[in-house]
């Protein structure tokens, strides 16, 4: 097995948490690979070195300060349920604000010029209703449509004047 493939099992092997199969694979590889043996040895030394570094102890006033913080922490408010999910709260607030903005914008979007043109067109149509209801006009339209196109003979006077010119 390659060095790369055993790398993920190497830490578990060194800290003693590797499974039996993992341990077998790593041990077989370490027998053959000097570079990985050296690396494993350096990891062991690294852990020893890391263990030597102490961490700072909590200061003496830690508990007292915590108790004070707990005592002065504000009680959960009406909207306290939102605090664990600030992103959700922000999204809801944004959605509400957007809805209000769109709602407030809608009446203003009607253009007064368009409204005037529309009402003028309606007025013209109402005004023409009389023409459409006039029987004579309608019958004239019918008569015109019955006429044969360009078959009517020309008056004689027109023919004479035309040839004389």
């Amino acid at each position, binding site marked *: 097995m390659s060095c790369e493939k055993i790398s*993920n*099992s*190497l830490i578990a092997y060194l800290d003693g948490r590797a499974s039996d199969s993992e341990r077998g694979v790593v041990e077989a590889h370490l027998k053959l690979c000097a570079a990985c043996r050296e690396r494993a040895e350096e990891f062991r030394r690294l852990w020893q070195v890391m263990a*030597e*570094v102490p961490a700072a102890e909590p200061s003496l006033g*830690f508990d007292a300060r915590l108790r004070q913080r707990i005592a002065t922490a504000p009680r959960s408010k009406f909207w306290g349920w939102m605090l664990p999910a600030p992103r959700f709260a922000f999204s809801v607030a944004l959605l509400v604000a957007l809805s209000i903005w769109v709602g407030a914008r809608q009446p203003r979007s009607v253009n007064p010029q368009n409204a005037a043109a529309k009402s003028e067109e309606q007025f013209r149509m109402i005004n023409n209703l009389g023409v459409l209801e006039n029987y004579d006009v309608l019958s004239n339209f019918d008569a015109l449509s019955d006429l044969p196109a360009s078959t009517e003979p020309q008056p004689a006077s027109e023919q004479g004047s035309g040839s004389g010119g």
Partner: protein
Amino acid sequence: MARSDVQLMLDVKAGDDVSFELLLHKYRTPLVHFLCRMVKDQAAAEDLAQEVFLRVYRARKEYSPSAKFTTWLFCIATNLALNAIRDGRYRQMQISIDAPADDDEPAFQLPAREARADDRLIERERNQMIRGAILMLPEKQRAAVVLHKYHDMDYAEIGKILGCSESALKSLLFRAYETLRVQLALLVARPAAQTAGEGKRI
């Protein structure tokens, strides 16, 4: 018989503040140690540790024992530390491995005869170097290393805290330790003389 952490927390949920004091007493030091290794500065680490306990106390009414208490506690601590580091609140605490020691940690200036003081100084420099190398790791690798090395947590628990699978965690740990091995080669590599000696014997 001592109550388990989960039982103590359930008692806190039921309104028993003494149980909260017991949990505070038990986990105050490990949490401060963990956070000190995450953000370096002790004041910042204590501030974050207090925030962890404050959140535990505030969340007591909603507590349900779905995981080990330590997993829950360190999950809160890790998230707070990672957020604080990413927000840049503790950016000034990200030190370089080559940076000089703090002002209260003077460089090598003591007379040679003061062997004890010298030793202390060398030890301090050495610790500073190791802490610096850990702090230089990417945040998630740093958290994995600190929980693995200093808190002796198993892979399943660290995986739950960091939100990754065991195999992803093993890979993360390998990369982190590999970086540390290279960064701290001065401390972990075998002395050249020893290697040369072995070569001669061969």
